[in-house]
């Protein structure tokens, strides 16, 4: 029973693949490559050594942009959230920058860094920075005063309160924020690679279309993006299972 339940989503995917195949084979003007052609495209990419190379290129950019944002935005957000005056002063500025899509920064990032990895990493950084800052700000703001007061009552120094109360209290929300932001970063890397660089999964998609309408390669690239996005999310979700963090998540 349990096994059947676990297999259900995979069975559904298999069913969709069959339906996709049948639908394509029954009409002549190919709106989409059929699944077998996409499978062939994977093989072709792997044989040319591009599949692995492009995946690594995309992950490399996301990792750097995302990590740089995390190590700068989280301490900044925590500090802003802790000092309420800073929050009042900075909030309007943050709210103005927030609706600007990170993609709107593509021209400027190319102007500053040229076509290449740095421009793409910069875009990921921008896309991750504000959401993470806001997550950290809100996480500090929502710590119940009773925890801080208890920390003070037991004679903790300010550093002790930060390390033993503030930090553990915000971790569950930070993990949710990191997970959502990593999703955004993964969306943005594909777009950034379409314009700012000559490798990666986003580049694969644009390049396959431009160089001879190879829609099998386009769809293969899309499938790869989806699979890696899924793996990243599963990886981040596994943090939510840590026992000392469970309290921060409503039971599901």
């Amino acid at each position, binding site marked *: 029973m349990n096994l059947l339940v676990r297999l259900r989503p995979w069975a559904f995917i298999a069913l969709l693949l069959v339906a996709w195949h049948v639908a394509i084979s029954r009409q002549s003007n190919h709106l989409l490559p059929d699944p077998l052609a996409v499978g062939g495209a994977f093989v072709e990419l792997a044989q040319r050594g591009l599949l692995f190379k492009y995946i690594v290129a995309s992950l490399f950019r996301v990792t750097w942009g995302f990590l740089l944002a995390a190590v700068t935005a989280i301490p900044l957000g925590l500090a802003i959230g802790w000092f309420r005056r800073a929050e009042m002063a900075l909030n309007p500025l943050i709210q103005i920058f927030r609706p600007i899509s990170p993609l709107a920064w593509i021209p400027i990032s190319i102007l500053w860094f040229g076509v290449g990895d740095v421009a793409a990493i910069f875009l990921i950084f921008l896309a991750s920075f504000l959401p993470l800052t806001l997550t950290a700000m809100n996480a500090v703001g929502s710590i119940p005063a009773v925890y801080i007061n208890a920390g*003070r*009552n037991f004679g903790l120094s300010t550093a002790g309160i930060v390390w033993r109360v503030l930090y*553990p209290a915000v971790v569950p929300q930070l993990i949710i924020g990191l997970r959502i932001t990593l999703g955004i970063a993964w969306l943005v890397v594909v777009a950034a690679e379409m314009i700012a660089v000559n490798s990666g999964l986003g580049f694969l998609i644009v390049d396959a279309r431009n160089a001879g309408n190879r829609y099998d390669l386009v769809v293969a690239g899309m499938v790869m993006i989806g699979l890696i996005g899924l793996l990243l999310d599963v990886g981040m979700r596994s943090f939510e299972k840590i026992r000392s963090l*469970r309290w921060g998540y409503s039971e599901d």
Partner: protein
Amino acid sequence: MSQTTAPTTARAVKTKLRAEGISMIFRRDGKETSVLDSVDLDVYDGEFICLLGPSGCGKSTLLNSIAGFLAPTSGKVTIDGEPVTGPDPRRIFVFQERGVFPWLTVEGNIAFGLFKLPQEERARRIAYYVKLVGLQGFEKAYPQELSGGMKQRLEVARALAVNPDMLFLDEPFGALDSITRLIMRGELLRIWEAEKKTIIFVTHDIEEAVQLADRVVVMSARPAKIQQIVEIDIPHPRDISSPRYLELRDGIFEQIGLAHKV
């Protein structure tokens, strides 16, 4: 009924805490609200005091200023002759809302205030207080795995573990069901007799106050003043159907202005 006299039942006569002329005025949106109006109170060493009053009367505010979390607008609090300037590990506040840290286990919570002690002493105290509050077998459990009563006991254990000489409890049993609340009162009295702490306990429950306290400080509605201090001269364990108990309880009911009929 005796007024502001030193207790005859309590074990000591030394003044532990003295609050003099405590007034508190909150300002919000240009409006001033007077919450406490020149409250004077002496608490003796080892005494169990209940601050009793209607909800929102300011008794929690009084407790918070005694504990050093709020600075009173005027007046001063001294404990053992020293003025109170802020919270202090020698006197621990047990919070109305659940104040246990959800990211720490039972052991971790009890150990929270013991960071200055050597490893061995810490382990010894954890074991002792786990047992004192009856949480054996739950040492590695997280608070979300505990019931409300167990969480409240854990918070009391965390407070006692640092060996404070005073405990401030702000309606600690308010969120518990009535059966658990009765059990917890018994537990608290047992711990109080074993550990000889000075306890100030805020409640709006007249029965609770008369069951627990050496003296019940009856407070008026806002701005709170001390209306009367009632000495409960019944030894523990108290028979809650004895004539003296009923007399004292009904006296407080009248004092608060409640006809004792439902």
